């Protein structure tokens, strides 16, 4: 923080100055006894603002902004350097963050793929229109052709009363028993395959068809679609909950790590507060530490996820080809990857912020 990283030789930027110093320092004249040049330390009267203002602006605003940027850059570099000087400890923290992040992300990818697979089945949703008993064969066929022309219907199929009876005989297992019926109790049926997807839209279509005069009842074969939909929704909620929990876990991990870092540098914080460091100045290195923890964890999570995907891709391909499908796993695209890194960094920064606001205030010079 504040100045230099530990153990590194300090490099004041006036390099040429340094050489001249080396030669001059050989002269053993102890400057303590020497009479100082007049006004050496206070050569010009420091221009101060009016007494009402507490700030001394001896530094111009533009210079201050440059200094602020410089300190940001220095602290970013310094805090990263500090993490890298203890690679094992940092790697542990990064790994914890990465695991916590990759779990919900992996589930998200799984769900994405599941949705992709299920969307291929979406077309198989069917609507059965049971026609009124008085609608004759011709009427039924006319209606079928009429429906065929609609945009929201992909395909229609007409089953006359006789055909439905035959199907029923075949599938119901009542077979012979039905022969004893005097007349055919079954209605004619038009099977409709909608070209639109989405449960709501399909349900609306069903309601529309149900109101047709020739139709006694329209039924959407929804059961499995609904089930799948609910499972997906459940999955999504679980991922959200898990993501929230693990996000909080990341916050706590980073927060606790930063708390330890603050504790380690307690003395330093006290000293620089005593010599006029603002809270922002004290906070800065710790916030950067949090950012590095988050970003590092995010990168590691990204690597973990892509390694697992690579590892799973082979089996998934062979499984898909067994079902005569060319499906393969969809991983994280560029946007998802950026989002992952960004949220990881944000979590790290937030965790650091929590720790800093909680613990830095308590460290005041006494």
């Amino acid at each position, binding site marked *: 923080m504040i*100045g230099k990283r530990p153990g590194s030789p*300090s490099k004041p930027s006036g390099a040429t100055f340094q050489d001249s110093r080396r030669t001059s320092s050989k002269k053993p004249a102890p*400057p*303590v006894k020497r009479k*100082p040049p007049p006004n050496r330390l206070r050569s010009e009267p420091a221009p101060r603002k009016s007494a009402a203002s*507490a700030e*001394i602006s001896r*530094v111009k605003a533009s210079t201050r902004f440059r200094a602020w940027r410089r300190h940001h850059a220095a602290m970013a570099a310094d805090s990263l350097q500090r993490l890298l000087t203890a690679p094992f400890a940092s790697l542990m923290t990064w790994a914890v963050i990465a695991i916590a992040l990759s779990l919900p992300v992996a589930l998200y990818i799984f769900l994405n793929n599941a949705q992709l697979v299920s969307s291929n089945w979406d077309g198989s949703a069917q609507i059965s229109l049971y026609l009124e008993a008085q609608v004759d064969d011709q009427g039924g066929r006319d209606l079928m052709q009429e429906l065929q022309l609609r945009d929201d219907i992909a395909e229609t199929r007409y089953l006359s009363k006789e055909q439905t009876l035959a199907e029923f005989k075949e599938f119901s297992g009542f077979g012979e028993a039905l022969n004893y019926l005097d007349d055919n109790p079954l209605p004619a049926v038009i099977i409709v395959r909608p070209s639109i997807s989405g449960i709501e839209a399909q349900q609306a279509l069903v309601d529309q068809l149900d109101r047709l005069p020739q139709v006694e009842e329209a039924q959407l074969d929804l059961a499995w679609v609904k089930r799948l939909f609910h499972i997906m929704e459940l999955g999504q909620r679980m991922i959200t909950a898990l993501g929230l929990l693990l996000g909080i876990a990341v916050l706590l991990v980073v927060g606790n790590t930063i708390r330890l870092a603050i504790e380690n540098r307690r003395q330093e914080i006290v000293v620089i507060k*005593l*010599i006029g460091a603002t809270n922002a100045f004290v906070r800065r290195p710790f916030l950067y530490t949090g950012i590095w923890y988050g970003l590092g964890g995010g990168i590691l999570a990204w690597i973990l996820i892509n390694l697992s995907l690579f590892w799973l891709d082979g089996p998934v391909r062979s499984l898909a080809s067994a079902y005569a499908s060319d499906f393969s796993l969809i991983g994280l695209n560029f946007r998802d990857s950026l989002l992952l890194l960004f949220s990881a960094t944000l979590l790290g920064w937030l965790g650091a912020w929590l720790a800093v606001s909680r613990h830095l205030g308590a460290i005041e010079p006494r």
Partner: protein
Amino acid sequence: MIQFTNVFKRYENGHEALQNVNFTLQEGEMAFLTGHSGAGKSTLLKLIMRMEVATRGQVMIDGLHLSQLGKRHIPFLRRKIGVVFQDHQLLFDRSVYDNVALPLIIEGMDPKDIAKRVRAALDKVGLLSKEQFTPIMLSGGEQQRVGIARAVVNKPPILLADEPTGNLDPKLSAEIMQLFRQFNAVGVTVLIASHDLNLIGRMGQRMLALTEGSITHDGAPR
């Protein structure tokens, strides 16, 4: 520059550290603050640095009412005050140069100017040749001089010192005092807390004596 008006300080445990303290230190003045340990010297210095707040009365530093000073402004008050601590308060994980540069970095000075100012300050205390040392490699007197260099490097109008010669032998103490006198000579207001009455007597400066939280003497050393 420093003005105390009817200042009382009572700590939360009920200890009355200061009772009705009144004194004024003009700009460019130099004074010693003396008294037994527990007489309130440290409390008085802490009030000036706004490490503590007066329970009653008014502390004014360079025209600022400290009781009305917002938390946000405290750092800027402290930048006006160079402080030399008895235990130096140096950072041992970095070089002498970096220790002295701290106030300038905090103030946001340009690195080039920082190098010049740090070397000027180190030259002043005679430690220019040791700028790359870490404080741990220095003797007690040298560490104290690093502390002084850090206190004056940003040319503060006020210099406070809390027992700056507490652990030093008489010869080193005299050297340190000589340094303070030099800073005073260029216009810095200097207030030094010390219980070394011999030394104070030899310096011949104004002396404020604290006894159980009250000022019992203000003037030439007794």
